[in-house]
């Protein structure tokens, strides 16, 4: 118990991301994956999951975040196989399974996207405290959304939150710590 607490404190001191203590169970979800199959968080138990929310028409934050994650994934080398990036859309109206698949593959073919009905995706966002707001009208609207990435442990615990703007090395650092 004492060892576990010490480990947790050391962990908290060392991670580059914002750390929750104690970590809570990451809310599970069931949506359509970009591979066409059902996508749940729990199916990746045993892997560290990097979970983000965004959309394929996002002009700046999402492409930057995904490029950073792709770079981090490459830098992790063999350890990358124990990590799963999941990107859930905040724009289910436009982000079809095919569109998500094509978009994410441009960054890293192992990245998994998730979409569903507007109500389904809103429920997932609410369970994580994520905000998303449609800005503008017509087919060219934007979605203002939270830009943080959630780091979920192999045991499915929501351990940390990486703010936008961190470098690939910070992800490599934190993911390596969570894997260990």
């Amino acid at each position, binding site marked *: 118990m004492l060892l576990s607490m010490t480990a947790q404190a050391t962990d*908290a001191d060392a*991670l*580059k991301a*914002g*750390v*929750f*203590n*104690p970590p*809570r169970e990451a809310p599970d979800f069931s949506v359509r994956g970009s591979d066409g199959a059902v996508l749940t968080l729990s199916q990746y138990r045993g892997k560290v999951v990097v979970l983000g929310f965004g959309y394929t028409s996002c002009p700046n934050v999402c492409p930057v975040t995904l490029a950073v994650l792709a770079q981090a994934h490459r830098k992790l080398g063999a350890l990358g196989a124990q990590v799963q990036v999941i990107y859930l859309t905040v724009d289910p109206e436009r982000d079809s399974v095919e569109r998500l698949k094509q978009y994410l593959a441009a960054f890293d073919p192992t990245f998994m996207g998730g979409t569903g009905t507007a109500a389904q995706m809103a429920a997932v966002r609410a369970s*994580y*405290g*994520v*905000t998303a707001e449609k800005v503008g009208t017509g087919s060219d609207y934007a979605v203002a959304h*939270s*830009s*943080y990435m*959630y780091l979920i442990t192999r045991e499915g615990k*929501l351990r940390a*939150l990486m*703010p936008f*703007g*961190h470098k690939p090395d910070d992800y490599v650092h934190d993911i390596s710590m969570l894997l260990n």
Partner: protein
Amino acid sequence: MNIVFHKRVGFGLVAVTVAVAVALGAVAWAAFTPVTFASREENFEIPKGTWARRMAGNKVEILPTRVFLTLGIRDVLLLKNLDDVPQIFGPTLMMPGQTFRLPFEVASSYQFACTAHASGQMTVVVDEQPDTPWRRLVWRTRRIFRVVA
């Protein structure tokens, strides 16, 4: 008359000299004394009953709307939710009893949604590390104005 005048001028000169010396000493101290804190963490607690008081119509301000941090010396925000209900901080939920520790590495102004605030917003201003005499002087001067404001 002349003696009295000279005495007054002399006293005035001494007073001005002392005042200038004290001011220069203060500036030198502010510029050359390193800025230190006992901990790099800035702690805030959301007290039990915050949500209930707000729901009852009370204006509850328990956290400052602007929090100032400084890289290298006090650059970690530590929030503790002691309330009975989850609180939203930034893009996530903090469960009752949960602590969220957020380190900063880039000087900037960060906006967070925060249900512990009546305004629903919290700004964290992260300043550069005051690692040169000029930066220390600016940092201390700014701090005085922030406290007064």
